[in-house]
């Protein structure tokens, strides 16, 4: 073996760096999607949604249900290319997720309007248990493949390898961020912002606050479902969706808190920071940290940031009067 230590090492280091960058961004964009849905729900309804991980898992399961288990709509259109039928299946699943999100809000959260924020948060903890138990029962002990068209292919850029899934994921995340930003400029979006600002005043202006609540849960569920799908795809879980997906989504909480509970920008920035921190933490050479340290890095980053800025990076400081 030829001996060119310095050059070779430098080369692997850049590759390692770039690989971790891609990994961190891909992880971070999933966190960002989860955090965005969470923040929309929190802004509109003041509800801290512990059930978000369960919503992600539920959404991914819906995709698996339509795309592979029931095989709708591919069974009626055998000639269509995979990506068309799969996109349609995902679309149907997202509509279903939207409906289920609204339904959950209507049944479990609406009766709690006006109650203490803490009590409502615990209600969502209950919703999380119920939704997770049912979803996990449907998923069963095996992994559920989602039938995506990207498979295990890579774009090889020389210095780094990008999975097709990751490219799609970046594109979709960017589209969704733009979409959410645009949504807040539409009439409904402005109504939602008004509701977030003051529910009673919004009501007095003729905004159907209840419908805004439902809508925010629907949107939250859709964003969670998209995140859930990407959580269950190739670079992360080659087998497909399993019962751990809901659990993984808990790691998005640090991202949410980091950015501030009520800031969309914060959600995206927080998600990326947490994703990058988690992926680069594998560079820390200390042996004694043991396995699974990457999993707690988000919480450690969160703790540090919160001690310096108690309302997150972009969160609104609560003004407290006696």
């Amino acid at each position, binding site marked *: 073996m030829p001996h060119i230590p310095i050059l070779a090492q430098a080369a692997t280091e850049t590759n390692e760096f770039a690989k971790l960058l891609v990994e961190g961004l891909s992880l971070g964009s999933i966190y960002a999607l989860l955090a965005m849905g969470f923040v929309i729900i929190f802004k509109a309804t003041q509800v*801290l949604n512990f059930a978000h991980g369960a919503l992600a898992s539920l959404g991914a399961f819906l995709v698996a249900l339509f795309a592979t288990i029931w095989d709708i709509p591919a069974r009626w259109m055998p000639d269509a290319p995979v990506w068309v039928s799969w996109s349609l299946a995902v679309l149907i699943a997202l509509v279903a997720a939207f409906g289920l999100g609204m339904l959950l809000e209507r049944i*479990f959260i609406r*009766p*709690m309007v006006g*109650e203490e*924020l*803490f*009590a409502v*948060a*615990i*209600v969502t*903890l*209950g*919703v*999380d*248990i*119920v939704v*997770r*138990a*049912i979803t*996990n*029962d449907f998923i069963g002990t095996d992994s559920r493949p989602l039938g995506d068209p990207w498979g295990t292919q890579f774009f090889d850029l020389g210095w780094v390898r990008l999975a097709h899934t990751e490219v799609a994921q970046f594109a979709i995340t960017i589209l969704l961020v733009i979409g959410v930003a645009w949504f807040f400029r539409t009439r409904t979006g402005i109504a939602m912002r008004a509701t977030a600002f003051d529910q009673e005043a919004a009501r007095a202006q003729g905004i159907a606050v209840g419908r805004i609540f439902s809508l925010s849960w629907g949107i939250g569920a859709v964003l969670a479902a998209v995140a859930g799908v990407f959580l269950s795809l190739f670079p992360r879980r080659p087998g497909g969706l399993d019962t751990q997906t809901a659990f993984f989504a*808990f790691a998005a*909480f*640090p991202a*949410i*808190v980091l950015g501030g*509970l009520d800031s969309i920008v914060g959600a995206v920035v927080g998600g990326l920071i947490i994703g990058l921190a988690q992926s680069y933490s594998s560079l820390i050479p200390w042996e004694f*940290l*043991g*396995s*699974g*340290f990457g*999993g*707690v890095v988000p*919480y*450690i980053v*969160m*703790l540090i940031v*919160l*001690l310096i800025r*108690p*309302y*997150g990076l972009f969160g609104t400081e*609560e003004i*407290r*009067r*006696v």
Partner: protein
Amino acid sequence: MRGRPLLYTSYEADQAMLNTTTKRVMAFIFFVFLLAIPLFKVGSIGGGEDPMGALPGPDFLAQDDWLKLLTSVCIFAIAGLGLNILTGLAGQVSLGHAFFMGLGAYVAAVLGMPSGALWGLGLPIWIWLPVAGLIPALVGVLVAPTAVRVRGLYLAIVTLGLVFIGEYLWRNLDFITGGSQSGRSHPEFEVRLWKEEQPLIDFSTEGTWFGVFNLSSEAKTYIFLLLLTVIFIVIAKNLQRTRVGRAFMSIRDRDIAAEVMGVNEFRYKTLAFAISSFFAGVSGALLASFVGRSIPETWILFLSVQIIAIVLIGGAGTVSGTLMGAAFVTLLPRIIRDFTQWMQGVVQSGEGVLASLFDLVLSTGPGDFGLVNTAAGVAPGLGIDQLNLVIYGLLIIGFLIFEPLGLYGIWLRIRNYWKGWPFTY
């Protein structure tokens, strides 16, 4: 003064833990009943070769599996009382209870187990049990400043982080916890003065107490934990009527107002975390010792949620509510299981209206539709564990929506109805 239970002539009487005669009498009767439960079993009283004596009473309670359940009610009651002090009295939301319970359990294991493959000091119970509370209390003091800085919902997520960090620690500190694969064993309930061979009191083997009571190891453990729980109940109940307890409640109701009135927010929040973590640590140590083994995955978020469910279903801020909640939450899975088995029996006998009704609920084979499946992996429908979880979640939601005061609120209404009977108000 006789016959006028609500007429108080002194501050002491008004503030007493059991402030009416009825409460005192009922509490005493209930305590004696709980203490006597192991004696309902045939053969539990009397000496000689083949004793047949027993107290008259529901003897299924005295069977070993029910005694075990009642013992875990006691353990979860202690954990619930701890969280009740933090959340119910001081109003600080904490999802981190499982972390403190795990910490307590491992402190107990290190102190109580003889040194072997894992660390251990082999100290007696009167050292390891209190220290298993004190160390978590110290860690609680370290966490508390975050609670002063970070408020409300942010605090809930910070304490959530505590559970995950804890889980990571337990997985990696395998010289203490034994790691995920094997876990570790925990000290048995035995009272020793120091490290002598023969324990003074031994709760983990069968034996005869006072020459007449023949008790199984389960019965002994149950009585030990019942007495321990009573101590913690008295501490928790007493706390509510002290200066500290009132300070907690004032912080819960409005922290700024409390501070204006001279309640030192930092000090009392720290104290609340410390006391609550003490309870959690002790109950964690008891839980691990009672089960005998623990793995790092014992101390996960679900345990925290369970304790929160105990406090909320029971009724936040009330001691008796927390106790009811502990009994309810711990006994529920067993009741669901027994009920499902009973339904299965009725369906199999195939008689009466109930059989066809239950057949709709149960699914027994691949083609049978039903809500609950009794043949796991074959039939559609929820498995019994999943059903437990779903009912659990629905109960938490249901109580919060319909009865925010929890079981305590229901009890209050029943009591007040009979107090005023035959008048409705």
